[in-house]
Protein backbone atom coordinates (compact mmCIF):
# COMPACT_ATOMS: atom_id res chain seq x y z
CA UNK A 1 0.00 0.00 0.00
CA UNK A 2 1.33 3.39 -0.98
CA UNK A 3 1.71 6.47 1.15
CA UNK A 4 -1.33 8.45 2.11
CA UNK A 5 0.48 11.78 1.80
CA UNK A 6 3.44 12.41 -0.42
CA UNK A 7 5.26 15.70 -0.57
CA UNK A 8 7.71 16.33 -3.38
CA UNK A 9 10.12 19.20 -3.87
CA UNK A 10 7.81 21.45 -1.96
CA UNK A 11 8.74 25.09 -1.92
CA UNK A 12 7.15 28.18 -0.47
CA UNK A 13 8.50 31.67 -0.29
CA UNK A 14 7.01 34.84 1.12
CA UNK A 15 8.55 37.75 -0.69
CA UNK A 16 12.19 37.36 0.21
CA UNK A 17 11.80 34.65 2.83
CA UNK A 18 11.91 31.06 1.65
CA UNK A 19 10.07 29.31 4.44
CA UNK A 20 9.92 25.89 2.79
CA UNK A 21 12.84 25.12 0.55
CA UNK A 22 12.48 21.90 -1.41
CA UNK A 23 11.06 19.32 0.91
CA UNK A 24 10.29 15.67 0.28
CA UNK A 25 8.67 13.23 2.65
CA UNK A 26 5.79 10.83 2.87
CA UNK A 27 3.32 9.70 5.44
CA UNK A 28 2.08 6.12 5.43
CA UNK A 29 -1.45 5.13 6.32
CA UNK A 30 -2.19 4.61 10.00
CA UNK A 31 1.12 6.09 10.95
CA UNK A 32 1.86 8.69 13.58
CA UNK A 33 4.50 10.90 12.12
CA UNK A 34 6.10 13.95 13.65
CA UNK A 35 7.53 17.04 12.04
CA UNK A 36 10.04 18.79 14.24
CA UNK A 37 12.57 21.55 13.89
CA UNK A 38 13.60 24.91 15.24
CA UNK A 39 11.23 27.83 15.41
CA UNK A 40 10.65 29.23 11.98
CA UNK A 41 11.83 26.03 10.28
CA UNK A 42 8.69 25.94 8.20
CA UNK A 43 6.56 23.32 9.94
CA UNK A 44 3.38 25.33 10.22
CA UNK A 45 3.92 26.59 6.71
CA UNK A 46 3.92 23.00 5.47
CA UNK A 47 0.64 22.39 7.29
CA UNK A 48 -0.76 25.51 5.70
CA UNK A 49 0.34 24.30 2.29
CA UNK A 50 -1.18 20.87 2.80
CA UNK A 51 -4.47 22.27 3.95
CA UNK A 52 -4.58 24.73 1.06
CA UNK A 53 -4.30 27.95 3.06
CA UNK A 54 -1.28 29.07 1.05
CA UNK A 55 -0.67 28.34 -2.60
CA UNK A 56 2.57 26.43 -3.12
CA UNK A 57 5.42 28.20 -4.84
CA UNK A 58 6.52 24.95 -6.45
CA UNK A 59 6.47 21.24 -5.88
CA UNK A 60 3.55 18.90 -5.38
CA UNK A 61 1.46 17.51 -2.58
CA UNK A 62 -0.29 14.20 -3.15
CA UNK A 63 -3.03 12.82 -0.99
CA UNK A 64 -3.82 9.20 -1.77
CA UNK A 65 -1.88 9.65 -5.02
CA UNK A 66 -4.06 12.58 -6.06
CA UNK A 67 -2.47 15.97 -6.45
CA UNK A 68 -4.13 18.34 -4.02
CA UNK A 69 -2.03 21.46 -4.15
CA UNK A 70 -3.89 24.34 -5.70
CA UNK A 71 -7.20 23.14 -4.34
CA UNK A 72 -9.28 25.31 -2.06
CA UNK A 73 -9.06 24.48 1.65
CA UNK A 74 -12.64 23.32 1.87
CA UNK A 75 -12.13 20.86 -0.96
CA UNK A 76 -9.08 19.46 0.75
CA UNK A 77 -11.19 19.04 3.87
CA UNK A 78 -13.77 17.20 1.81
CA UNK A 79 -11.07 14.95 0.47
CA UNK A 80 -10.22 13.87 3.97
CA UNK A 81 -7.54 16.04 5.53
CA UNK A 82 -8.32 17.99 8.66
CA UNK A 83 -6.20 19.85 11.14
CA UNK A 84 -5.80 21.84 14.32
CA UNK A 85 -4.02 25.15 14.64
CA UNK A 86 -0.94 26.27 16.51
CA UNK A 87 -2.83 29.31 17.78
CA UNK A 88 -6.08 27.72 18.77
CA UNK A 89 -8.88 28.76 16.40
CA UNK A 90 -12.26 27.97 17.83
CA UNK A 91 -15.39 29.87 16.79
CA UNK A 92 -15.78 31.91 19.91
CA UNK A 93 -19.36 33.06 19.60
CA UNK A 94 -20.66 29.60 18.86
CA UNK A 95 -21.40 26.90 21.39
CA UNK A 96 -19.07 23.96 21.75
CA UNK A 97 -21.48 21.61 20.11
CA UNK A 98 -21.99 24.02 17.22
CA UNK A 99 -18.25 24.20 16.75
CA UNK A 100 -18.14 20.46 16.26
CA UNK A 101 -21.28 20.43 14.14
CA UNK A 102 -19.56 22.86 11.82
CA UNK A 103 -16.93 20.19 11.29
CA UNK A 104 -19.72 17.96 9.99
CA UNK A 105 -20.48 20.51 7.31
CA UNK A 106 -18.47 18.94 4.53
CA UNK A 107 -20.14 15.57 5.03
CA UNK A 108 -23.67 16.88 4.71
CA UNK A 109 -25.67 18.40 1.93
CA UNK A 110 -28.74 20.47 2.55
CA UNK A 111 -28.43 23.93 1.05
CA UNK A 112 -30.15 27.28 1.26
CA UNK A 113 -33.45 26.25 -0.20
CA UNK A 114 -33.82 23.15 1.92
CA UNK A 115 -32.83 25.15 4.98
CA UNK A 116 -35.26 27.94 4.16
CA UNK A 117 -38.14 25.52 3.84
CA UNK A 118 -37.00 23.40 6.78
CA UNK A 119 -37.84 20.19 4.92
CA UNK A 120 -38.20 16.96 6.81
CA UNK A 121 -35.04 15.61 5.23
CA UNK A 122 -33.18 18.67 6.43
CA UNK A 123 -34.36 18.15 9.95
CA UNK A 124 -33.35 14.52 9.80
CA UNK A 125 -29.94 15.47 8.55
CA UNK A 126 -29.58 18.07 11.27
CA UNK A 127 -30.36 15.41 13.80
CA UNK A 128 -27.67 13.15 12.38
CA UNK A 129 -25.18 16.00 12.46
CA UNK A 130 -25.96 16.58 16.09
CA UNK A 131 -25.62 12.95 17.02
CA UNK A 132 -22.35 12.48 15.23
CA UNK A 133 -20.97 15.65 16.79
CA UNK A 134 -21.99 14.60 20.26
CA UNK A 135 -20.16 11.37 19.65
CA UNK A 136 -17.02 13.27 18.74
CA UNK A 137 -17.41 15.46 21.80
CA UNK A 138 -17.56 12.46 24.06
CA UNK A 139 -14.63 10.96 22.19
CA UNK A 140 -12.49 13.86 23.41
CA UNK A 141 -14.32 14.08 26.74
CA UNK A 142 -16.11 17.41 26.34
CA UNK A 143 -19.71 16.24 26.11
CA UNK A 144 -20.60 17.79 29.46
CA UNK A 145 -19.82 21.27 28.17
CA UNK A 146 -21.66 21.05 24.92
CA UNK A 147 -23.89 24.10 25.32
CA UNK A 148 -21.28 26.45 26.69
CA UNK A 149 -19.72 29.15 24.55
CA UNK A 150 -16.39 28.05 23.17
CA UNK A 151 -14.73 31.12 24.61
CA UNK A 152 -15.49 29.85 28.11
CA UNK A 153 -13.23 26.85 27.75
CA UNK A 154 -9.79 26.77 29.26
CA UNK A 155 -6.88 26.37 26.92
CA UNK A 156 -6.63 22.59 27.13
CA UNK A 157 -10.31 22.14 26.45
CA UNK A 158 -10.10 24.44 23.46
CA UNK A 159 -7.43 22.18 22.06
CA UNK A 160 -9.66 19.18 22.62
CA UNK A 161 -12.51 21.01 20.96
CA UNK A 162 -10.37 21.68 17.92
CA UNK A 163 -9.62 17.99 17.70
CA UNK A 164 -13.27 17.02 18.05
CA UNK A 165 -14.15 19.49 15.31
CA UNK A 166 -11.43 18.10 13.07
CA UNK A 167 -12.62 14.55 13.71
CA UNK A 168 -16.16 15.50 12.81
CA UNK A 169 -15.01 16.04 9.23
CA UNK A 170 -14.23 12.31 9.08
CA UNK A 171 -10.65 12.81 8.04
CA UNK A 172 -8.28 10.11 6.92
CA UNK A 173 -5.34 12.29 7.77
CA UNK A 174 -5.25 14.73 10.62
CA UNK A 175 -2.62 17.41 11.07
CA UNK A 176 -1.97 18.45 14.66
CA UNK A 177 0.05 21.63 15.14
CA UNK A 178 1.66 21.55 18.59
CA UNK A 179 -1.09 19.59 20.31
CA UNK A 180 0.55 19.65 23.73
CA UNK A 181 2.16 23.08 23.79
CA UNK A 182 1.01 24.86 26.93
CA UNK A 183 -0.29 21.69 28.53
CA UNK A 184 0.90 20.36 31.84
CA UNK A 185 2.45 16.95 32.07
CA UNK A 186 -0.67 15.09 33.08
CA UNK A 187 -2.64 16.89 30.40
CA UNK A 188 0.05 16.01 27.90
CA UNK A 189 -0.33 12.45 28.90
CA UNK A 190 -4.06 12.57 28.31
CA UNK A 191 -3.48 14.10 24.92
CA UNK A 192 -1.09 11.34 24.02
CA UNK A 193 -3.71 8.78 24.91
CA UNK A 194 -6.21 10.65 22.76
CA UNK A 195 -3.80 10.62 19.86
CA UNK A 196 -3.43 6.88 20.18
CA UNK A 197 -7.19 6.51 20.17
CA UNK A 198 -7.46 8.60 17.07
CA UNK A 199 -5.03 6.35 15.35
CA UNK A 200 -6.99 3.33 16.52
CA UNK A 201 -10.07 4.49 14.64
CA UNK A 202 -8.00 4.40 11.51
CA UNK A 203 -6.83 7.96 11.12
CA UNK A 204 -3.33 8.84 10.08
CA UNK A 205 -1.63 11.52 12.13
CA UNK A 206 0.99 14.07 11.19
CA UNK A 207 1.98 16.30 14.07
CA UNK A 208 4.28 19.16 14.87
CA UNK A 209 5.58 19.47 18.40
CA UNK A 210 8.43 20.86 20.42
CA UNK A 211 7.87 18.65 23.46
CA UNK A 212 10.53 16.07 22.74
CA UNK A 213 9.37 13.68 25.40
CA UNK A 214 5.98 13.54 23.80
CA UNK A 215 7.32 13.33 20.25
CA UNK A 216 9.68 10.53 21.10
CA UNK A 217 6.93 8.62 22.78
CA UNK A 218 4.13 8.81 20.25
CA UNK A 219 5.72 9.05 16.87
CA UNK A 220 6.82 6.16 14.77
CA UNK A 221 8.77 8.33 12.41
CA UNK A 222 10.18 11.80 12.69
CA UNK A 223 11.09 14.34 10.01
CA UNK A 224 13.41 17.09 11.15
CA UNK A 225 13.40 20.41 9.35
CA UNK A 226 15.76 23.28 9.54
CA UNK A 227 15.47 26.49 7.56
CA UNK A 228 12.88 24.95 5.32
CA UNK A 229 14.86 21.84 4.49
CA UNK A 230 14.79 18.27 5.75
CA UNK A 231 17.92 17.60 7.74
CA UNK A 232 17.07 14.19 9.09
CA UNK A 233 14.39 11.55 8.91
CA UNK A 234 13.97 8.29 10.75
CA UNK A 235 12.81 6.69 13.95
CA UNK A 236 12.82 8.81 17.08
CA UNK A 237 15.98 7.13 18.28
CA UNK A 238 17.78 7.78 15.04
CA UNK A 239 17.04 11.45 14.83
CA UNK A 240 17.65 11.94 18.52
CA UNK A 241 21.25 10.98 18.07
CA UNK A 242 21.79 12.73 14.78
CA UNK A 243 24.49 15.37 15.13
CA UNK A 244 22.85 17.86 12.81
CA UNK A 245 19.59 17.58 14.72
CA UNK A 246 21.34 18.11 18.01
CA UNK A 247 23.14 21.27 16.93
CA UNK A 248 20.23 22.79 15.10
CA UNK A 249 17.41 21.83 17.37
CA UNK A 250 17.86 19.79 20.48
CA UNK A 251 20.94 21.42 21.89
CA UNK A 252 23.68 19.67 23.81
CA UNK A 253 21.95 17.32 26.12
CA UNK A 254 23.69 18.09 29.30
CA UNK A 255 21.74 16.69 32.15
CA UNK A 256 20.66 20.10 33.30
CA UNK A 257 19.25 21.21 29.97
CA UNK A 258 17.47 18.00 29.33
CA UNK A 259 15.30 18.75 32.28
CA UNK A 260 13.96 21.84 30.59
CA UNK A 261 11.84 19.76 28.35
CA UNK A 262 8.60 18.87 29.91
CA UNK A 263 9.61 15.55 31.44
Amino acid sequence: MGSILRIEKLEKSFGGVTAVDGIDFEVNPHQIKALIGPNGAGKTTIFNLISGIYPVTSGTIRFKEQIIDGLKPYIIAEKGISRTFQNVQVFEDMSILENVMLGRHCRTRSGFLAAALNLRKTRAEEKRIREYSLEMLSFVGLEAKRDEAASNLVFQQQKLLEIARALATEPELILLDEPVAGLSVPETDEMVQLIYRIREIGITILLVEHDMGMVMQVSEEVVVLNSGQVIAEGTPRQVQNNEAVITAYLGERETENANYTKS
Partner: protein
Amino acid sequence: MKKKNLIVLVILAGVTMAIPLGLGNSYYLNVLVFVGIHSLITIGLSLLMGYAGQISLGQAAFFGLGAYTSGILSTKFGVSPWLALLAAIFVTGGIAFLIGAPALKLKGHYLAMATLAFGYIVYIIFNQASSFTGGPSGFGQIPRFRLGNFLFKTDVHYYYLVWILVIVALLISLNITHSRVGRALRSIHAGELTANVMGVNTAKYKIQIFVLSAVYASVAGSLYAHFITFLNPSPFGFHFSIVLVTMVVVGGVASVWGAMIGAALLTILPEYLRAFQDYDILIYGSILLLIMVFLPKGLFVGIFDLVKKRKNRQ
Protein backbone atom coordinates in the same frame (compact mmCIF):
# COMPACT_ATOMS: atom_id res chain seq x y z
CA MET B 1 -36.08 26.64 14.36
CA LYS B 2 -36.29 26.88 18.10
CA LYS B 3 -39.67 26.65 19.73
CA LYS B 4 -39.28 30.05 21.34
CA ASN B 5 -38.85 31.69 17.95
CA LEU B 6 -41.83 29.90 16.55
CA ILE B 7 -44.01 31.10 19.40
CA VAL B 8 -42.86 34.67 18.97
CA LEU B 9 -43.45 34.40 15.26
CA VAL B 10 -46.99 33.15 15.73
CA ILE B 11 -47.72 35.91 18.22
CA LEU B 12 -46.25 38.48 15.86
CA ALA B 13 -48.35 37.14 13.02
CA GLY B 14 -51.45 37.32 15.16
CA VAL B 15 -50.78 40.83 16.34
CA THR B 16 -49.87 42.22 12.93
CA MET B 17 -52.90 40.68 11.33
CA ALA B 18 -55.13 42.16 14.02
CA ILE B 19 -53.72 45.68 14.00
CA PRO B 20 -55.76 47.10 11.10
CA LEU B 21 -58.97 45.96 12.80
CA GLY B 22 -58.36 48.45 15.55
CA LEU B 23 -56.54 51.03 13.54
CA GLY B 24 -58.31 52.36 10.55
CA ASN B 25 -56.24 55.51 10.15
CA SER B 26 -54.48 55.46 6.84
CA TYR B 27 -51.53 57.42 8.18
CA TYR B 28 -50.65 54.90 10.88
CA LEU B 29 -51.12 52.03 8.50
CA ASN B 30 -48.97 53.80 5.97
CA VAL B 31 -46.21 54.10 8.54
CA LEU B 32 -46.58 50.42 9.35
CA VAL B 33 -46.40 49.54 5.66
CA PHE B 34 -43.04 51.28 5.59
CA VAL B 35 -41.99 49.49 8.76
CA GLY B 36 -42.78 46.28 6.92
CA ILE B 37 -40.96 47.28 3.75
CA HIS B 38 -37.93 48.36 5.71
CA SER B 39 -38.07 45.20 7.82
CA LEU B 40 -37.90 43.08 4.71
CA ILE B 41 -34.66 44.77 3.75
CA THR B 42 -33.15 44.76 7.22
CA ILE B 43 -33.98 41.11 7.84
CA GLY B 44 -31.94 40.25 4.76
CA LEU B 45 -29.24 42.66 5.73
CA SER B 46 -28.98 41.21 9.21
CA LEU B 47 -28.47 37.76 7.73
CA LEU B 48 -25.62 39.24 5.75
CA MET B 49 -24.14 41.41 8.48
CA GLY B 50 -25.03 39.69 11.70
CA TYR B 51 -24.63 36.11 10.63
CA ALA B 52 -22.12 36.09 7.81
CA GLY B 53 -20.27 39.17 9.08
CA GLN B 54 -20.22 40.88 5.70
CA ILE B 55 -21.18 44.54 5.50
CA SER B 56 -23.11 46.15 2.68
CA LEU B 57 -23.39 49.89 2.25
CA GLY B 58 -25.20 49.45 -1.04
CA GLN B 59 -28.40 47.81 0.05
CA ALA B 60 -30.51 50.78 -1.07
CA ALA B 61 -29.37 50.02 -4.59
CA PHE B 62 -30.93 46.56 -4.48
CA PHE B 63 -34.06 48.13 -3.07
CA GLY B 64 -33.97 50.58 -5.96
CA LEU B 65 -33.25 47.91 -8.55
CA GLY B 66 -36.26 45.99 -7.33
CA ALA B 67 -38.41 49.10 -7.42
CA TYR B 68 -37.27 50.30 -10.82
CA THR B 69 -37.35 46.91 -12.53
CA SER B 70 -40.80 46.29 -11.20
CA GLY B 71 -41.95 49.82 -11.95
CA ILE B 72 -40.53 50.03 -15.46
CA LEU B 73 -41.73 46.59 -16.53
CA SER B 74 -45.24 47.13 -15.30
CA THR B 75 -45.60 50.74 -16.39
CA LYS B 76 -43.80 50.84 -19.72
CA PHE B 77 -44.15 47.24 -20.86
CA GLY B 78 -47.48 46.39 -19.34
CA VAL B 79 -46.19 43.40 -17.41
CA SER B 80 -48.39 42.40 -14.49
CA PRO B 81 -47.01 43.71 -11.20
CA TRP B 82 -46.64 40.17 -9.82
CA LEU B 83 -44.60 39.07 -12.79
CA ALA B 84 -42.66 42.28 -12.58
CA LEU B 85 -41.88 41.55 -8.95
CA LEU B 86 -40.65 38.12 -9.92
CA ALA B 87 -38.57 39.52 -12.77
CA ALA B 88 -37.12 42.09 -10.41
CA ILE B 89 -36.01 39.30 -8.09
CA PHE B 90 -34.09 37.72 -10.93
CA VAL B 91 -32.62 40.96 -12.19
CA THR B 92 -31.58 42.13 -8.74
CA GLY B 93 -30.35 38.72 -7.68
CA GLY B 94 -28.34 38.42 -10.89
CA ILE B 95 -26.75 41.82 -10.41
CA ALA B 96 -26.01 40.99 -6.79
CA PHE B 97 -24.32 37.82 -7.93
CA LEU B 98 -22.21 39.65 -10.49
CA ILE B 99 -21.08 42.33 -8.08
CA GLY B 100 -20.85 40.00 -5.08
CA ALA B 101 -18.51 37.50 -6.67
CA PRO B 102 -15.57 39.89 -6.83
CA ALA B 103 -16.60 42.23 -4.02
CA LEU B 104 -17.00 39.59 -1.34
CA LYS B 105 -13.34 38.73 -1.67
CA LEU B 106 -12.79 42.04 0.06
CA LYS B 107 -12.90 42.45 3.78
CA GLY B 108 -14.16 44.95 6.30
CA HIS B 109 -13.89 48.57 5.26
CA TYR B 110 -12.87 47.58 1.74
CA LEU B 111 -16.03 45.59 1.29
CA ALA B 112 -17.97 48.48 2.77
CA MET B 113 -16.44 50.79 0.19
CA ALA B 114 -17.01 48.43 -2.71
CA THR B 115 -20.67 48.03 -1.89
CA LEU B 116 -21.00 51.76 -1.34
CA ALA B 117 -19.42 52.42 -4.73
CA PHE B 118 -21.72 49.90 -6.36
CA GLY B 119 -24.74 51.51 -4.73
CA TYR B 120 -23.63 54.91 -5.89
CA ILE B 121 -23.11 53.76 -9.46
CA VAL B 122 -26.61 52.31 -9.52
CA TYR B 123 -27.95 55.58 -8.15
CA ILE B 124 -26.18 57.50 -10.89
CA ILE B 125 -27.67 55.18 -13.47
CA PHE B 126 -31.15 55.80 -12.07
CA ASN B 127 -30.45 59.49 -12.57
CA GLN B 128 -28.89 59.30 -15.98
CA ALA B 129 -30.67 56.57 -17.90
CA SER B 130 -33.65 58.87 -18.24
CA SER B 131 -35.21 57.11 -21.19
CA PHE B 132 -35.93 54.18 -18.88
CA THR B 133 -36.00 55.69 -15.44
CA GLY B 134 -37.33 59.16 -16.10
CA GLY B 135 -34.07 60.56 -14.76
CA PRO B 136 -34.10 62.78 -11.71
CA SER B 137 -37.74 63.69 -12.33
CA GLY B 138 -38.80 60.09 -12.07
CA PHE B 139 -41.99 58.59 -13.41
CA GLY B 140 -45.42 57.81 -12.04
CA GLN B 141 -48.62 55.93 -12.73
CA ILE B 142 -47.17 52.61 -11.76
CA PRO B 143 -49.99 50.08 -11.63
CA ARG B 144 -50.97 48.49 -8.34
CA PHE B 145 -51.09 44.82 -7.53
CA ARG B 146 -54.20 42.95 -8.50
CA LEU B 147 -55.50 39.49 -7.60
CA GLY B 148 -58.19 38.51 -10.06
CA ASN B 149 -60.71 41.28 -9.66
CA PHE B 150 -59.30 42.46 -6.40
CA LEU B 151 -57.16 45.57 -6.67
CA PHE B 152 -54.69 46.38 -3.91
CA LYS B 153 -55.56 49.97 -3.42
CA THR B 154 -55.79 51.14 0.14
CA ASP B 155 -53.25 51.21 2.89
CA VAL B 156 -54.98 48.28 4.54
CA HIS B 157 -54.54 46.13 1.46
CA TYR B 158 -50.88 46.95 1.26
CA TYR B 159 -50.51 46.50 4.96
CA TYR B 160 -51.62 42.89 4.73
CA LEU B 161 -49.64 42.19 1.60
CA VAL B 162 -46.44 43.59 3.05
CA TRP B 163 -46.76 42.01 6.46
CA ILE B 164 -47.59 38.58 5.13
CA LEU B 165 -44.40 38.78 3.12
CA VAL B 166 -42.48 39.99 6.18
CA ILE B 167 -43.67 36.99 8.15
CA VAL B 168 -42.74 34.65 5.35
CA ALA B 169 -39.33 36.28 5.16
CA LEU B 170 -38.91 35.93 8.91
CA LEU B 171 -39.84 32.28 8.77
CA ILE B 172 -37.36 31.62 5.99
CA SER B 173 -34.66 33.57 7.75
CA LEU B 174 -35.16 31.87 11.07
CA ASN B 175 -35.08 28.49 9.37
CA ILE B 176 -31.85 29.39 7.67
CA THR B 177 -30.18 30.69 10.79
CA HIS B 178 -30.97 27.50 12.65
CA SER B 179 -29.69 25.23 9.94
CA ARG B 180 -26.45 23.85 8.67
CA VAL B 181 -26.26 26.84 6.38
CA GLY B 182 -26.76 29.30 9.24
CA ARG B 183 -24.00 27.61 11.16
CA ALA B 184 -21.69 27.88 8.19
CA LEU B 185 -22.52 31.58 7.91
CA ARG B 186 -21.72 32.18 11.53
CA SER B 187 -18.45 30.31 11.23
CA ILE B 188 -17.50 32.65 8.40
CA HIS B 189 -18.15 35.55 10.72
CA ALA B 190 -16.11 34.01 13.52
CA GLY B 191 -13.15 33.01 11.37
CA GLU B 192 -13.40 32.77 7.65
CA LEU B 193 -10.14 30.97 7.03
CA THR B 194 -10.74 28.42 9.75
CA ALA B 195 -14.22 27.79 8.42
CA ASN B 196 -12.79 27.18 4.99
CA VAL B 197 -10.22 24.76 6.34
CA MET B 198 -12.97 22.94 8.20
CA GLY B 199 -14.74 22.32 4.93
CA VAL B 200 -17.03 25.29 4.37
CA ASN B 201 -17.11 26.75 0.88
CA THR B 202 -16.97 30.24 2.30
CA ALA B 203 -16.99 32.07 -1.01
CA LYS B 204 -20.13 30.28 -2.11
CA TYR B 205 -22.01 30.96 1.11
CA LYS B 206 -21.03 34.59 1.17
CA ILE B 207 -22.34 35.09 -2.33
CA GLN B 208 -25.51 33.15 -1.64
CA ILE B 209 -26.36 35.16 1.41
CA PHE B 210 -25.47 38.37 -0.40
CA VAL B 211 -27.84 37.44 -3.21
CA LEU B 212 -30.52 36.46 -0.73
CA SER B 213 -30.28 39.77 1.06
CA ALA B 214 -30.48 41.53 -2.30
CA VAL B 215 -33.58 39.53 -3.16
CA TYR B 216 -35.26 40.58 0.08
CA ALA B 217 -34.42 44.18 -0.76
CA SER B 218 -35.72 43.70 -4.27
CA VAL B 219 -39.06 42.40 -3.07
CA ALA B 220 -39.27 45.35 -0.73
CA GLY B 221 -38.49 47.61 -3.68
CA SER B 222 -41.25 46.12 -5.81
CA LEU B 223 -43.73 46.57 -2.97
CA TYR B 224 -42.60 50.15 -2.64
CA ALA B 225 -43.02 50.84 -6.34
CA HIS B 226 -46.51 49.45 -6.56
CA PHE B 227 -47.51 51.10 -3.31
CA ILE B 228 -46.25 54.63 -3.92
CA THR B 229 -46.84 54.37 -7.69
CA PHE B 230 -44.17 56.98 -8.33
CA LEU B 231 -40.41 56.50 -8.52
CA ASN B 232 -37.51 58.90 -8.54
CA PRO B 233 -33.92 58.16 -7.55
CA SER B 234 -33.74 60.02 -4.26
CA PRO B 235 -35.03 57.28 -1.92
CA PHE B 236 -32.42 54.86 -3.25
CA GLY B 237 -29.24 56.77 -2.59
CA PHE B 238 -26.29 56.26 -0.31
CA HIS B 239 -28.12 57.96 2.48
CA PHE B 240 -30.76 55.27 2.66
CA SER B 241 -28.15 52.52 2.59
CA ILE B 242 -26.68 54.04 5.70
CA VAL B 243 -30.09 54.28 7.31
CA LEU B 244 -30.62 50.58 6.64
CA VAL B 245 -27.33 49.58 8.21
CA THR B 246 -28.16 51.83 11.13
CA MET B 247 -31.51 50.11 11.57
CA VAL B 248 -29.84 46.73 11.69
CA VAL B 249 -27.21 47.81 14.18
CA VAL B 250 -29.55 49.77 16.40
CA GLY B 251 -31.87 46.81 16.60
CA GLY B 252 -29.06 44.38 17.23
CA VAL B 253 -26.99 43.08 14.40
CA ALA B 254 -26.96 39.42 15.33
CA SER B 255 -30.66 38.78 15.18
CA VAL B 256 -33.44 39.05 12.66
CA TRP B 257 -35.74 40.20 15.46
CA GLY B 258 -33.32 42.98 16.19
CA ALA B 259 -33.37 43.94 12.54
CA MET B 260 -37.12 44.30 12.72
CA ILE B 261 -37.00 46.29 15.91
CA GLY B 262 -34.44 48.60 14.37
CA ALA B 263 -36.53 49.05 11.25
CA ALA B 264 -39.59 49.79 13.34
CA LEU B 265 -37.81 52.23 15.62
CA LEU B 266 -36.07 54.21 12.94
CA THR B 267 -39.18 54.35 10.78
CA ILE B 268 -41.56 55.37 13.54
CA LEU B 269 -39.22 57.61 15.53
CA PRO B 270 -38.94 60.32 12.84
CA GLU B 271 -42.72 60.42 12.70
CA TYR B 272 -42.86 61.27 16.38
CA LEU B 273 -40.06 63.76 15.98
CA ARG B 274 -41.96 65.66 13.31
CA ALA B 275 -43.52 67.64 16.11
CA PHE B 276 -40.11 69.03 17.01
CA GLN B 277 -39.66 70.68 13.62
CA ASP B 278 -36.03 71.56 12.93
CA TYR B 279 -34.90 70.14 16.23
CA ASP B 280 -35.83 66.66 15.09
CA ILE B 281 -32.43 66.15 13.53
CA LEU B 282 -30.71 66.89 16.84
CA ILE B 283 -33.04 64.66 18.82
CA TYR B 284 -32.76 61.88 16.28
CA GLY B 285 -28.97 62.06 16.33
CA SER B 286 -28.91 62.10 20.11
CA ILE B 287 -31.20 59.11 20.47
CA LEU B 288 -29.08 57.17 18.01
CA LEU B 289 -25.94 58.12 19.85
CA LEU B 290 -27.36 57.24 23.25
CA ILE B 291 -28.59 53.85 22.10
CA MET B 292 -25.23 52.99 20.64
CA VAL B 293 -23.26 54.23 23.61
CA PHE B 294 -25.39 52.55 26.24
CA LEU B 295 -26.60 49.51 24.33
CA PRO B 296 -23.77 48.88 21.90
CA LYS B 297 -25.15 45.45 21.05
CA GLY B 298 -28.38 47.04 19.95
CA LEU B 299 -31.83 47.25 21.44
CA PHE B 300 -32.78 43.61 21.14
CA VAL B 301 -29.82 42.17 23.02
CA GLY B 302 -29.42 45.27 25.15
CA ILE B 303 -32.94 45.16 26.53
CA PHE B 304 -32.66 41.43 27.13
CA ASP B 305 -29.47 41.98 29.07
CA LEU B 306 -31.06 44.70 31.14
CA VAL B 307 -34.02 42.50 31.98
CA LYS B 308 -31.69 39.66 32.90
CA LYS B 309 -29.66 41.91 35.14
CA ARG B 310 -32.78 43.12 36.85
CA LYS B 311 -33.89 39.54 37.40
CA ASN B 312 -30.53 38.56 38.78
CA ARG B 313 -30.56 41.37 41.23
CA GLN B 314 -33.88 40.34 42.64
